[in-house]
């Protein structure tokens, strides 16, 4: 099954690389952003070849190490370059297979441990081996054959390196290789700033060793801070390496400054572009702060709530980053949607799953149509496309809220049992006491 889907994935991607499908489907805006677009990477390489600093203009916003990686590949055939992207995609699916396998096996162990403590009637909602035997295969196939991942690969979006680094970081964390995991996470956050938030859930996971039951809080906090410092050191090393490559620090404003200040209003599937296009100048800085804090801040409450399940916390963080980052694209959703089957036991409690599915489907189909109508046909205007991006973002927000709700209700069900007499008491959310 797996080998067949790998083969099919390679064939589909190779065939689509030769065609002009991205232009025909007009789906460029959904997969290209000013940071990750392949056109701009080629532009950066051309600047270097002509002796101009890649960061002197405002066209190129990738980090120096990524630029150097593609600069080394500049002389090769286009087919070799396509092969590099296919290999990255296969690498991500490989990572996702093992990530899902380890998450599911750990979940089975954990659920088995609490089998005695839960309500008698809710043993059937526990995760067990039979329900989860196909999950890794499913996750991997879902990534390989998902249209979002195929489109991101065909578009040669540089985000693929970012996705590979994130999935590798999660995989290494699950294998308890902390320092390597922090290195992979440093690479991911070096390229696009937002994954640095994952350092918290991954460090929490690394600190909570199952064998280490009786360690004191102080030791745990010490280990936690150790991992964070390890991440910071790797990040600093990468920055230093970039400084040596470029020769000056002006790449920092061109990359991280660009991500944080979002000056380019190029439309994408996110919330930032139209908001700041239509923003009054007086309030621009204030709302920029609000939006960026919004992107980073959800980690705090979620960490408190989900501190006993850091991998789920990491997953929700990835979903929130994909919804609220300054220049999102379909590439951010590829590995997140692929990992959904891991938490399929939560999908039973989801209230809005149908709505979310329809919203994602319709926004993905309508986005290129309305973009074409606005930009090429000139018959629609920007509001149509903006509405679709709103729908896309709302769907992702609903997904996060729904998953979190399902998680909480499932916990409640595990404790109180699934068969309840609701005549005497009704469940609802009330303030924490």
């Amino acid at each position, binding site marked *: 099954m797996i080998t067949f889907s790998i083969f099919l994935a390679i064939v589909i991607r190779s065939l689509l690389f030769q065609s002009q499908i991205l232009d025909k489907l007009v789906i460029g805006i959904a997969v290209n952003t000013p940071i990750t677009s392949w056109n701009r990477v080629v532009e950066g390489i051309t600047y270097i070849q002509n002796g101009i600093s890649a960061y002197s203009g405002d*066209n190129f916003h990738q980090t120096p190490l990524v630029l150097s990686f593609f600069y080394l590949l500049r002389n090769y055939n286009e087919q070799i370059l396509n092969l590099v992207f296919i290999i990255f995609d296969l690498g991500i699916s490989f990572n996702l297979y093992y990530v899902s396998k380890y998450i599911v096996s750990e979940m089975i162990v954990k659920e088995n441990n609490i089998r005695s403590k839960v309500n008698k009637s809710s043993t059937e909602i526990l995760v067990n081996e039979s329900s989860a035997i196909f999950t890794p295969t499913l996750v991997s196939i879902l990534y390989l054959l998902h249209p979002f991942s195929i489109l991101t690969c065909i578009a040669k979006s540089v985000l693929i390196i970012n996705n590979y680094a994130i999935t590798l970081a999660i995989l290494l964390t699950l294998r308890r290789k902390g320092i390597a995991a922090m290195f992979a996470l440093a690479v991911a956050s070096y390229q696009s700033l937002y994954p640095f938030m994952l350092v918290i859930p991954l460090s929490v996971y690394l600190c909570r060793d199952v064998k280490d039951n009786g360690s004191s809080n102080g030791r745990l906090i010490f280990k936690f801070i150790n991992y964070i410092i390890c991440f910071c050191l790797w990040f600093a090393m990468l920055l230093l390496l970039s400084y040596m490559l470029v020769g000056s620090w002006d790449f920092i404003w061109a990359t991280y400054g660009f991500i944080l200040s979002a000056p380019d209003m190029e439309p994408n599937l996110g919330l930032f572009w139209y908001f700041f*296009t*239509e923003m009054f100048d007086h309030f621009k800085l204030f709302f920029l702060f609000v*939006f960026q804090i919004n992107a980073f801040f959800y980690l705090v409450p979620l960490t408190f709530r989900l501190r006993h399940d850091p991998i789920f916390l990491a997953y929700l963080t990835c979903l929130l980053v994909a919804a609220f980052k300054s220049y999102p694209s379909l590439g951010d959703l590829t590995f997140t949607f692929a990992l959904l089957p891991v938490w399929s036991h939560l999908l039973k409690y989801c209230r809005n799953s149908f709505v979310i599915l329809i919203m994602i489907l319709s926004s993905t189909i309508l986005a290129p149509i309305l973009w074409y109508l606005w930009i090429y046909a000139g018959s629609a205007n920007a509001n149509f496309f903006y509405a679709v991006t709103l729908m896309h973002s709302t769907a992702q927000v609903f997904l996060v809220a729904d998953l979190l709700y399902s998680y909480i209700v499932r916990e409640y069900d595990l404790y109180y049992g699934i068969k309840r007499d609701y005549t005497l008491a009704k469940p609802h959310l009330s303030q924490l006491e």
Partner: protein
Amino acid sequence: MISKYYYLSLLYVIFISLVPSTLASVKANDHYHEELVLQPLATGHLYAHFQFTTYWNVDISDKDAFKHFNLFPKPLGQILSRYDVEELHFALTQGLWRPDWWGYPLISSPPGAELSAWFSTNPSQSIDSAWSGLTNALSGLFCASLNFIDSTSTVSPAWSFRPEGASSEKNINSSRLRYATLTSETICTENLTPWKKLLPCDAKAGLSALFNSLALYNVFYHSMGVHVRPVCKTKDCKDPGVELKQTLSLVFDPILHSGSRDWNFASLFSKVIPSVCPMATSSQIFVDVSNNITYGEFTLNPPPHSLTPMKYTKSEVYAVYDLNLIDFDQTYASHGFNLAMEWKRTKKYGRGLKPPLYTHRYATGVGDENGGIRTRIYNHDNKDITILYMEVVPWYFRLYLHTFKILCNKNSTKNILLNRRYIPGKDRSRPYLLELVLRLPSKSSTTITMDFQRAFLKWTEHPPNAHHGFYISSAVISAILPNDINTTTPPLISTKRNHDKEAITRIYTEALLVTLPTPDFSMPFIVICLTSTVVAIAFGSIHNLTTRQYQLKNVEEAKKQNILSRLISLVLPFKKK
């Protein structure tokens, strides 16, 4: 009484003896020349070029000399002195000069407003602040909105422009140069009035008396210019000078107005010359009669005072009228001087000989996302021509250097692109500058291709007529061309180019008008509300789920609560039940 008279006369004598010396100090420090060139073109148009030159024998960097003015206009002089300007070229043009129809003009300028200034080698302020002050001052002086020139349209080209006057440096430092073009600038009578006022005779006498605003703007091509440069009389520059050239180039279409190629001053300008300007040292009219037989046969009435050959090949002949020799008091007292050209027969209307270099530029692309710029340069000459090409593109058309291509329809063994200089633009601060050195093969057409991506502007950055589009200003092609074929050289005192074998020729391409995708301008509040709603949904849901616990609530107790306590428990949930 006699003694009083004696003292008074002594005082008078002393006073009289002093006055000539003061007069002598301002006498002969500047002199003023007027010239008008009229040239019938092969297409039936008439090219009229006015040139008003003022020479002032002072050093342009001498601040004290720029406090007392005679013929040199004071407003302009004060601006030049205040902003440490060494050389200034300003042109306001309506229409595009077509080299493939008319040959080359005496002074070429792009459509819109063009301003370039060389600042002095040791300025008293930073060149950027001097440039900003200069644009604002000139905008006030000429009633043109030059104050829109800012860092997003200003460049410092390194190759295409050189100081036209005497420069103090051996190696020209191009960071002293600022160049900007505003293609959207329209020109009207409001610009003519202050320009006329700078002339010593101010449209009352001499050639400038022909200026009638209605007639001057009813033309095919209209270009008004002010050029200031330092000049030297000798090679070692012992007595420096400043030359101010005010030019007005017009292309009339007499056939459109009168149905025939005949013209006279009254039909063109609705005015005649009433008298000669007393401040002018020389005041001359040159009519190009070289093509008398080629285009047809014409006669000039009144007959010219002399005929002068003008190019070094002596192939071009100009008929010269000297206004100082004209008897304005008697012969032309009532009707003024009205020069007339009558055509006996016209051979044909055509486009004349193709000039050696002409160009065509156009934009390509479908939709408002991407596009391209193509410049086609034709070399009609028998030998290779080396040109300098300069293009300035605003920052919101993001040029992609990797799409740059040069194609030639003739395979040449030698390289066409000799050198390239590219400065990428920065958003909202700097435009893209592309300078090329090209060697064009003979009898070929070369196409320079570059693609761009259109940026998205904020809604406040769009002009009120957002759907009009944005201009990409004309590209400049500079070449040194031989001074004989089909080039109109000025037979003018100010430039002695008529005897040079070669001359610098500048050709400007068309300006491009490209639309940018516009947001909906009526939407700011709606967008803020809707986007904030999405963020609020996220915030609200996650806040609810992370700060509350899922627990059972007793149904009976809930029913027993009356509405008031239920509302209170909704609003103040921390109240324990």
